[in-house]
């Protein structure tokens, strides 16, 4: 089964640049559906990236982050072929995670 997370981590010099996309509706709670009913808020609150057992990046998100969120950051101290773990949890307690290799 496909993961909700797509991630690409590329090492260049001593810096690893990470780009990730998560499939998520990111409903803000302000949008109405076709029946005029408000769609309840449903959004990712925390995304955590971990390398070698250490957090390298954390995102705290509110409902203002776009649907199918994109994130880009970079960090130092990784080697080619290392594992990078991403996980997220949303306001309903749903969660997913993914382990990618640094290229």
């Amino acid at each position, binding site marked *: *089964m*496909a*993961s*909700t997370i797509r991630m690409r981590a590329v090492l260049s010099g001593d*810096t690893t640049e990470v780009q990730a996309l998560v*499939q998520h509706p*990111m409903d*803000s709670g*302000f*949008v*109405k559906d076709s029946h005029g009913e408000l769609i309840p808020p449903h959004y990712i*609150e*925390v*995304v*955590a990236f*971990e390398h*070698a*057992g*250490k*957090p*390298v*990046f*954390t*995102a*705290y*998100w*509110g*409902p*203002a*982050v*776009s*649907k199918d*969120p*994109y*994130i*880009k*950051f*970079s*960090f*130092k*101290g990784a080697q080619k072929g290392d*594992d990078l*773990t991403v*996980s*997220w*949890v*949303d306001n*309903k*307690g*749903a*969660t*997913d*995670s*993914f*382990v990618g290799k640094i290229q």
Partner: protein
Amino acid sequence: MKQNAGAAPGRTRRAVVQAAIAGALAGAGLAAAAPATPALAAADAGKWPKDAFAQKTEADAIKALYGKTPEPSEKVSLDAPEIAENGAVVPISVSTTLANVTSIAILVAENPFPLAANYPIPPGTAPAVSNRLKMAKTSKVIALVASGDKVFSASKEVKVTVGGCGG
């Protein structure tokens, strides 16, 4: 897809299965080789700055998040479009040349809840981040960078032709 929406926080089936696998590995003496726990985000969920995200004005959100007044700084750079045709997806990047950065936050002043995103920056991670935000209407976008014991800011007016918060 695999969102387990009905499961209790932190005890999804996924986490339980992974815990079981980790336990099995530990039993076989392979604990040291076991990968990092993927439930990291769930563990951090308690640190999500709930108060700051619930504030309805820019000033209150900054106060709830950092508890101090930011000073404008040229060392904070905020990259956002002049005109966003679609308020649902506005690409925004923040970076800084300041040292000892501990946190970056992005606010959209006119949104119902101005605080859009907050990124703690651990040592070794570059103080730069790109993401995509929703904007209800034309608004000032504010980037905040916490460095040392101060908070610095940069802001930019982004014109929105179609709002991204429905209505």
